[in-house]
């Protein structure tokens, strides 16, 4: 857990400049390019995911963060609406479960035989 962006910068730069892909074939060969910022940073803000409403403290804190970001002239804050999260979430759960959750139905129907 870093305390500043400078720390993160140093960490990633040190790791990438070590060129670890020469020693480990599973590492992606991404060299440190030291690219500089072009234009404004665009940040999309999703207030909620369309399935559950954030509670008051979470909403307040999000508003605080958006306000702090909007004050910076190098940052452009764009509100976004996440499309169809429900379907994607159930897809995700299907990936995480054994046989997409169908095994639960099997056990439920199998218990009728006992």
């Amino acid at each position, binding site marked *: 857990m870093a305390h500043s962006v400078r720390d993160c910068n140093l960490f990633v730069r040190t790791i990438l400049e070590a060129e670890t892909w020469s020693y480990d074939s599973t590492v992606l060969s991404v060299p440190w390019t030291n690219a500089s910022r072009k234009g404004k940073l665009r940040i999309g*803000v*999703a*207030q*909620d*995911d*369309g*399935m*559950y*409403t*954030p*509670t*008051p*403290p*979470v909403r*307040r*804190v*999000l508003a*605080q*963060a958006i306000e702090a970001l909007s004050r910076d002239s190098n940052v452009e804050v764009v509100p976004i609406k*996440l499309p169809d*999260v*429900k379907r*994607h*979430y159930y*897809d*995700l759960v299907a*990936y995480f479960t054994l046989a997409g959750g169908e095994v639960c139905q099997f056990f439920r129907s199998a218990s009728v035989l006992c």
Partner: protein
Amino acid sequence: MPPAPHTAVPFDCWTTASYHGLWNYLDYPAMVIPVDQVSETDIADDLSNAQFGTDDEKLYSLCKNFTISSRCQIRH
């Protein structure tokens, strides 16, 4: 967006991973930045604010008395 729609919940009451699970599903890099602590001015408001149906209302109603130890975070 927030990493969860709520702050800390009572034991065994966490119902959904739809907020942070989405970025997992898309394989996006993500990080969570702590912003603030829950304060006394945050009060549980009317259930009609829960916009998305009965599941949402159930989760929203868990937000009753806030303790100062809950922390609020945003996900980047």
